[in-house]
Structures are given as C-alpha cells and as structure tokens.
C-alpha cells in the first residue's frame, strides 16, 4: 500500500534529522575539550551548513516540496541558500570588524 | 445590503471627450466616488505623514535612549522650528486617519463575516491614534515651547514621547489580528488569504517592539536595529500592500453581498 511506503519514508527522514541533531552533541563535545571556551569559525560554519541541510530536508520531505511544482522547489532551495549565505556573511563580517 | 445594485456605470458609461468633462462626470455620477475619496485621503495622509515625521520634524529615525540630558536638550534645540511646523501640520491632518480606518472597516463590512469585526476595528483604531501618534507629537511640541525649561523635564518629555510611540503597539497588534481573522474566514474573497497572513506578520512586529520599555541600548531599544529598523521594513511592506489591496477592492466592488468579482482581463491571482 502506498501509504505504508510513505510512512516508512517519513520515519527514515525523522531518523536522519535526529542523527544530524545528535551530531551536534558530538561537535560540542569535541570542541569544548580541555574546558576552555573558544570561538571557532570552523564549528560555526559547519553548524550553519548542517542546519541549512536539515531545513532543506524538512522542506523537501515533511513539507512535500519534492512533489510540488518546480517553481516551489526552486524557491525553497533558493531560500535555503539565502539563509546559509546570509548567516555565514553576517558572522564573518562580524569577525572582520572585531 | 442584500440586493445587488447594478452600478450605473454599465447603464450610463462615462462620456468620452475632454478630460475635465470626464472628471466632472465621475465626481457627480460614479457610484464609487466616496470610496475613491476615502482612498485618496488615505494616500494624501501618508504622503504628508512621512515627510513631516522624517524630514520636517526629523523625529524619525528616533534618537538614542542613551543620550545624556545635555544632548537631548540640544536635540530639541535643533528642531525648535521643525517640530512645531511639522507637528502643527500633523495635528491638522490627524483626522484623516478616520478615513483610513473607515475604509478598512468598510472592507470588513463587505466580507461575509459579522459586522462586529468592522466595528471593533473602528473602535480600537480610533483610540489608537492617541498613543500611536498624538502623544509623541504633543510631548515633543511641549518640549520645544520653552527651551529654557529644566533639562530633567525635557528628558522626561523625551522619554515619554518615544516610549508612548514605540511601546504602545498592543492596540495595533489587536487591530491587525481582527483584520487578519476577518480576511481568513471571509467567504466573499474580498482579499487574498496571503494578505491575511501579512497582517499576522505585521502583528508580530508589534510584539517584537514591546521590549523597548526595558532596553536603553542594543537591538531592542526604541531605536534598535531590530525594534525599529527591521520592524520599519516589515511595516513599510505592509503599508504599501494594504494601500494597493484597498485600491483593488474598490475597483472590484460591485456593491453586492456575495463574493467580490475578480477584475476583468486575467486577474487570475486575485483569490
């Protein structure tokens, strides 16, 4: 039945998103080793990129953009890129103006 | 309002010919002339309001909450002519906001929703001009009247003006929500649903500006980049949009009580 196939796909999507979320725990753990608090552009950039990937997955799978007209696919992809680029830009401009 | 009145335009079309004759015909016979009058009054008001606030009185963008009293007194001094002139004009034209509100309430009467929506909107917005506009103007004009006043008092008027202006967004929040709900449950398709959602965006910016009561500096102060600048962008988009939406509504108006017809000639996206 088609709906069972759909439901399995949704569950897999949730598992992937959760795994990406838990990956943050791993990142956090490996960065704060030694107890000192340090800023890190590498961590920030990868976190922003991972978050953008998660948002895209939510758009395409949960919000069913995969089955939507091409315009909506392009628009949501453009938005994900816009979010990632804007956030990275704001961060690095801030770093430059420190 | 249950009979459909065929607009006389279809029976007696405006005469072709010289412009002044056509204008005269419209002024005397166009059934929508009151609506158009209201719309043009609204446009005139905003075309006066923004220059008065931004250019003549120069009170927007707002100054900083963190300035010391001497700087605040100097700020008043710089505007000792601009503020009385600018606000004098604002006081004279403030009544035009009644037309704005009436037109918006009219749009809700045209919808299939209860008249209570229109009436509540009118009530709220009639009162909202006081904190949302007049208190700032009054406080600042009082400040410019006697430049030799005690700086502490000037400082008080300064804070009172800007906090009353930026901090009392609750009335506008509720008003926006009333219009939003009316649009979303309306069956007469007076406005597209996305415009209802835009009202929600506007309402949320009122929430965002509320912390200006707490912060004297930073992005959430009354002149902050989020509380003022970003909110002004959203507010600007909203203002332009609702003026255009009301324009479209008047064009589509058929004075009936059923669904508002789309404009002829491929207005397919006026859902």
């Amino acid at each position, binding site marked *: 039945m088609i709906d069972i196939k759909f439901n399995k796909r949704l569950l897999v999507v949730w598992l992937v998103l959760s795994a990406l979320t838990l990956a943050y725990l791993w990142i956090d753990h490996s960065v704060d080793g030694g107890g000192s608090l340090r800023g890190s552009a590498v961590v920030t950039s990868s976190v922003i990129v*991972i978050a953008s990937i998660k948002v895209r997955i939510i758009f395409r799978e949960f919000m069913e953009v995969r089955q939507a007209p091409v315009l909506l696919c392009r628009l*949501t992809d453009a938005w994900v890129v816009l979010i990632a680029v804007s956030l990275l830009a704001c961060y690095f401009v801030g770093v430059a103006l420190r | 309002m249950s009979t459909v009145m065929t607009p006389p335009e279809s029976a007696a079309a405006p005469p072709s010919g010289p412009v002044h004759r056509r204008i005269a015909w419209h002024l005397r016979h166009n059934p929508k002339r009151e609506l158009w009058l209201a719309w043009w009054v609204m446009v005139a008001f905003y075309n006066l309001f923004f220059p008065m606030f931004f250019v003549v009185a120069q009170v927007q963008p707002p100054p900083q909450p963190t300035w010391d009293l001497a700087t605040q007194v100097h700020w008043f001094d710089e505007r000792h002519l601009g503020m009385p002139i600018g606000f004098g004009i604002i006081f004279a034209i403030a009544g035009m906001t009644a037309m704005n509100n009436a037109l918006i309430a009219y749009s809700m009467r045209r919808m299939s929703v209860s008249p209570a929506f229109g009436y509540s909107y009118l009530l709220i917005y009639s009162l909202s001009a006081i904190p949302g506009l007049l208190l700032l103007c009054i406080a600042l004009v009082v400040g410019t009247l006697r430049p030799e006043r005690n700086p502490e008092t000037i400082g008080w008027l300064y804070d009172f003006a800007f906090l009353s202006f930026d901090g009392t967004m609750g009335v506008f929040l509720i008003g926006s929500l009333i219009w939003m709900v009316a649009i979303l449950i309306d069956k007469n398709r007076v406005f597209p649903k996305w415009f209802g959602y835009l009202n*929600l965006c506007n309402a949320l910016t009122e929430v965002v500006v509320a912390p200006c009561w707490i912060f004297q500096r930073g992005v959430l102060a009354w002149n902050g980049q989020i509380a003022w600048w970003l909110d002004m962008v*959203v507010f600007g988009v909203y203002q332009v949009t609702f003026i255009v939406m009301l324009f479209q509504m008047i064009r589509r108006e058929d004075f009936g009580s059923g669904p508002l017809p789309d404009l002829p000639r491929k207005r397919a996206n006026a859902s």
Partner: protein
Amino acid sequence: MTELTDKNKRTRFVPGQPDMWAFVLFETLVFTAYFGFYLFYRAKSPELFLHGQAQLDLRIGVLNTLVLLLSSWSVARCVQSARVGAYRAALRDGYLTAFLGLAFMVSKVLEWARQIRMGNGFGSSDFFTYYFFLTGIHFVHLVIGFVVLGVLVYQLRSAARRSQELVETCATYWHTVDFLWVLIFALLYVVR
C-alpha cells in the same frame, strides 16, 4: 493546487494554500534577519557570548529539537493519512502533534525559569537578550501553531468540513515552527 485525486497519476501539487507558502517564506526572511544580527554581534564579542552560552544545557536543546522534529513527523503523517481518507489515523496524529508541541512548551518554560533562577534574565547580557528574544518570539509562533492545529483537528473531526487543502496549510505552518527552531537551536546552543 489540485488535490491528489488519482493516486496512480502523480501530478505535482502545491501542499496547502500557496498563500501560506508566501507567509512562510516572508517570515523566514524576517527570522533570518534576526539571526543575522545575532551572529554579527556574537562574532564581534565572542567571549561574552561564549560565557553566556556555556550556561545553557545543550542536552535540553537537543531534546527540544528531537521532540519538535517528531511533531513534524506526526503532522506530515497526519496529512498523508487524511489524503487517503484514513481520518481516524490522521486525527490521532493531529493530537500527537499537539501533545509533542505541548511538551516542547513546558520544557521551554522550565528552561527559562531555570535560567532566571540562575540570575540570567532578559537584560543580563547581550547573549541572554538574544536567547530570550529568539526563543520568545519562537514561542509566540508556537502558541499560534496551537491555534492552527486546532483548525486542523476541527477540519478532520467532521466529514462535512474536511478540506485537504486546509489540513495541508496547517501542516505547512507547523513545519515552519519546526524548522525555525532547528535554526534557533543551532545558533544559540551549538555555534561557537
């Protein structure tokens, strides 16, 4: 915008009202602006923000995210069930979504209370201003989400009222609340 009437013919359709999509994209831009300001000021004073961030518990943030992602899963499942006519299953998923949303809300309020008890208030430091502001405005969106879920459940409960488009529209809004949180969580709790 047509509903999927024939399952064999996979026509492309916009999930829910296109109007809601316009709102989603617009709100996302506004939130991106908020995030931009946060990251800019954070990059300019890293020690202050790092110090504030250290007082947050990442595990709570992760749990919040997992719960909200699960609620997105359940509302997506609800939409698919409704589409094939399995309304009882869809209704169950709708209630599950609301329950998970409620769990998130309770967790968030408890977290705020804990931070305030620790002495970190709205005005304590720039970091906590952003923390309470971003989680607060997200919370407002979540509360609106409950109204939206109410509409969804109301639609599903009566055969006369059901509108697949409206169900999908409500789900679209809920997913937005979810992905906004995904971004907020990454920026407040994990970013260095």
